[in-house]
């Protein structure tokens, strides 16, 4: 029973990881690529960790798997925010199908650096 559950969780997790990698390769833009890579870290790694914790089946490995999961769930949004902010202000070109860019007014991007005084 535990083996079947572990097999399902591992297959689902690796499928999410593969889909995230394909999304990172195929998406047209940095920001859309970040959206695809999030799937690997939350759903994919969550399924793999749960399967491993079930398979090993003792308290020590369960605590280790839970701490990896909690750490990844805490740091992924922070890392995503930092990358998105840095790449936006580094003026990485947006995809030409982008419909809304709220920070851009009058054709130029407002910088968040203190020197410009507009942040």
């Amino acid at each position, binding site marked *: 029973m535990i*083996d*079947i559950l*572990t*097999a399902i969780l*591992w*297959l689902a*997790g*690796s*499928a999410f*990881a*593969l889909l*995230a*990698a*394909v999304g*990172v*390769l195929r998406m047209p833009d*940095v920001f859309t*690529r*970040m959206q695809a*890579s999030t799937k*690997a*870290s939350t759903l*994919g*790694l969550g399924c*793999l*960790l749960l*399967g*491993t914790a079930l*398979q*090993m089946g003792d308290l*020590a*490995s369960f605590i*280790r*798997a839970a*701490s*990896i999961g909690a*750490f*990844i769930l805490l*740091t992924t949004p*922070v*890392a995503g925010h*930092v*990358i998105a*902010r*840095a*790449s936006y*202000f*580094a003026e*990485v*070109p947006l995809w030409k199908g982008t419909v809304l860019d709220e920070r851009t007014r009058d054709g130029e991007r407002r910088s968040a650096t203190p020197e410009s005084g507009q942040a």
Partner: protein
Amino acid sequence: MLDIVSRITLVTMGLALLIAFIRLVKGPTLPDRIVATDLLGVLIVGFIVVLAGWSGVHATLDAAIVIALIGFLGTVAYATYVERGDPQ
């Protein structure tokens, strides 16, 4: 059965690592490469987690914890570098 499933899982994770590495090589801008590196770190953690469940060695999960920590720090450091621009 679980032996075959873990082999399939490891091959799938390896394929995902290869595809993420293609983006790391191709990536037209530096933030593309940072996103690919971040994804590579997460995929390596997943690979090691499956390997730990397959082999039953507890110490392998500690390696996964360390790689997860270092991957986050590396991502934040690269992003800070991009946001500051070239050092004068």
